[in-house]
């Protein structure tokens, strides 16, 4: 385990026909870290994961895991994955699934340990089809860990789960993080990435638009939307520090900014008659948009 990086995408571009899924993506997974790949649906997260799993062929660029091709036999033996799939066959029991997946790996974890790690003790005798959604995801999580992997991919592990169940699964993943395994998880919940990851890579429309510690990313996406009726022009506010985007919507001026206090002060200075003012937190989409703006427009921040 002496590789500086456990897995890497270098200059990867991936297309499905005319649709570009990834464009010039560089992604590095460091040893022992939990990396969250954050992005909205269609951002290219799953494509990136499958390139690293070797289940998609690399079109342009390079993908390596443990310094080898992602589908090399030695790589498969040291890697685990939890994919966005509807599940394993309904008619086999939890322990049968675990028994089968353990058989795939040369040095599997003990079945009892896996049950404990995934928090599914006591349901091992039940058929997969009879389990709840959360239990199924935990089983899939256990299957990902069967081979005692050095690298685990969790592709949207909590998608479709309700909040409570999702938080329960976070507990298992967080405990797993303490085991020191390198983990790549994809999510479109910033909150999930924040709760689980050491580092976040933000993907948007196939590009890495941000990368950093969760606190950094969080602050950069903590945008607010300021809305009011004023005679201040769109251009005039564009130069205010923190403003990401400004536009006119009907009578309203709408400004997206990371520093709403400074903006509001500036607006009142220029137009004491402004009215109908609202300041709201922007959604994740807008946060990504903010990041996109930064990445799309390389010129100095206005």
């Amino acid at each position, binding site marked *: 385990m002496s590789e500086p990086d456990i897995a890497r995408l270098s200059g990867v571009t991936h297309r499905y026909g005319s649709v570009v899924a990834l464009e010039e993506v560089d992604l590095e997974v460091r040893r022992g870290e939990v990396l969250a790949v954050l992005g909205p649906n269609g951002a290219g997260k799953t494509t990136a994961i499958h390139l690293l799993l070797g289940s998609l062929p690399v079109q342009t660029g390079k993908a390596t895991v443990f310094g080898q091709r992602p589908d090399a036999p030695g790589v498969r033996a040291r890697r685990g994955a939890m994919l966005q799939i509807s599940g394993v066959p309904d008619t086999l029991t939890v322990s049968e699934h675990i*028994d089968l997946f*353990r*058989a795939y790996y040369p*040095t*599997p974890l*003990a*079945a009892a340990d896996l049950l404990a790690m995934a928090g599914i003790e006591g349901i091992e005798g039940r058929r997969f089809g009879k389990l709840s959604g959360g239990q199924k995801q935990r089983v899939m999580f256990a299957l990902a860990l069967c081979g005692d992997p050095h690298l685990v991919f969790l592709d949207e592990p909590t998608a479709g789960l309700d909040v409570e169940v999702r938080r329960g699964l976070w507990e298992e993943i967080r405990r797993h993080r303490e085991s020191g395994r390198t983990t790549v998880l994809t999510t479109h919940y910033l909150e999930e990435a924040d709760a689980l990851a050491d580092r976040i890579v933000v993907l948007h429309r196939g590009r890495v638009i941000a990368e950093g510690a969760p606190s950094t990313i969080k602050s950069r996406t903590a945008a607010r939307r300021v809305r009011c009726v004023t005679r201040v022009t769109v251009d005039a506010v564009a130069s205010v520090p923190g403003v990401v985007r400004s536009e006119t919507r009907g009578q309203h001026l709408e400004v997206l900014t990371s520093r709403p206090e400074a903006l509001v002060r500036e607006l009142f200075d220029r137009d004491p008659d402004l009215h109908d003012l609202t300041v709201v937190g922007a959604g994740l989409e807008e946060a990504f948009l903010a990041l996109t703006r930064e990445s799309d427009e390389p010129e100095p921040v206005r």
Partner: protein
Amino acid sequence: MKAGNRSGTRSLWILAVAAAGFIAALATLPVPESAAAPGQEVPESRFAVVDVTLFDGETFRRNQDVWIEDGRVRGLGPRLRLPEDLPRVDGRGHTLLPGLIDGHVHTFGGTLNDALRFGVTSVLDQFTDPALLTGARAARDEIARTAEADLFSAGMLATAPGGHGTQFGMAVEPLTEPASAAAWVRARKDEGSDWIKIISEDGAAHGGELQFPALDRETIGALITAAHAEELLAVVHVTGIERALEAVSQGADGLVHVWIDEVIAEEDARRVAEAGVFVVPTLSVIASMFGDSTGLRVLDETDEELISPMQWGTLGDRSYLRTGTEGEAALENVRRLHEAGVRIVAGTDAPNPGTGAGISMHSELRLLARAGLASDAVLAAATSAAAEAFRIPERGRIAEGHVADLVLVRGDVESDVSHTTGIVTIWKDGYAVAREPAATGSAPEIASAPDGPIVVDFEDGIDAGFGSGWQVTTDAMNGGASTAELAVEAGALVVRGETKAGFPFPWAGAIWFTGPQPMQAVDFSGRTTLRFRTRGDGRPYTVMLFGAGAAGTVPPAVPFTAGPEWAVVEIPLESFSTADPTIIAGLAFVAQAPLGSFTFELDDVEIR
């Protein structure tokens, strides 16, 4: 890892147990009762032949079981549900045929036994002594063990005075006018004839060699009409195409030879087919006339012990032999008739010279195949077609309720009809046929002759000279009525006598028994010629050579003429058409046809 291994190991155990269970279960599945190999301890009357290829009379059917009960076929089909105690014959690798039916024979002596021994379980006789018919009907209607084929017969034939059929010496009631046809046919029916056989023959087709008075067209027509009125079939002997086509147009039901003088035109063949007339080509006798050796080849292939002296004698007899291409014409006619859809019935005309009763049926099948009939058509001609053409019930097919006349032969007859000679078992009425010639008796050993020429000069009377002497010989030994007496006058043997109707090949004269006792053969090897002096009334005579164990046969013969002046006759021994003419038990100097009294003298008879 150890814990995980358990499910894998357990799976392997389960797999092994399941596979073993599967194999064990397969091994418990029922298998057939063991069947006897063919030929050993042949079951009779009540048995089954299992897993055999059978020819049912029309087609070959593979892997059939045939169930015989009380001398009849009780059932057949693939995998019959057979009683467990039913004896079985394993038929694999064999073909089961219906008993063969020879559509043209003449019955006398041991021919019915000879026929059955070669798988011919029924014969359709086209001229025999009507006295046989009553017994034949009784025998064929009974399901019982028998050593003879079932006989169906025309009985006496219809011919003109002095016409073909009268030359054999058997009593024939000739016809002269159409008006007598009805009474004649009624008389045949009363005698027990199964059908009416009419001779339409003037010898023309034989290139003028033979000439016969023939029935006129009107009489033939009247006979056919009369036969039909009595609900009898009318079959016609023809050897020429013109008379053949005329018989067809006159409503004949069948023709019992194929013509040899001309190849039939396709439209004429179609006419024959449309008229529904069947043809019994008798290729065996025709082919042998023209030098074909198929019959002799079958003889060669056959175990000698199975062949009766009569079969040896008649098959080897080349007295009908001549040259010509008529044999090919006959084959071509059969080919054309078959193609036109005419029903062909296999028949041999045995035991005429060149044929043997029963045995020639196997060469007939090969000749029919050579004429272009496929295996199934060949065998149908010898079974179902024969039975249907002559309205023979319950025979000619392997079918439920039919008489269990069966022939089991080795090999696949469909691929090659010559396999019919590989007979393993014959069942007649469900009884296994003992395949031994009825007329065997241990022939005395062959004596040897001193070197050099052997001469008999009659200087010291009739008993002088070599061998056990001279005696009268007539066809009485074969059931004939001819007579003869011998005397030595002036150092020469005088033979007087009369040939009379009775045996188909009548003879009377003197026989020289060359062995130490009568009919003991002597080995004259190294000698090549029979030489003698003779004179007489100018009619034709014949020297007949009797070989080893030759009783009951028509022996090979060479003709000579005894004219008014003494003359020397030299006959090469090889002119006698028999297997080894230097093995001689007797030499008969006899008068044959025409019937009547005769006188001739012999002197200085020499084998050199």
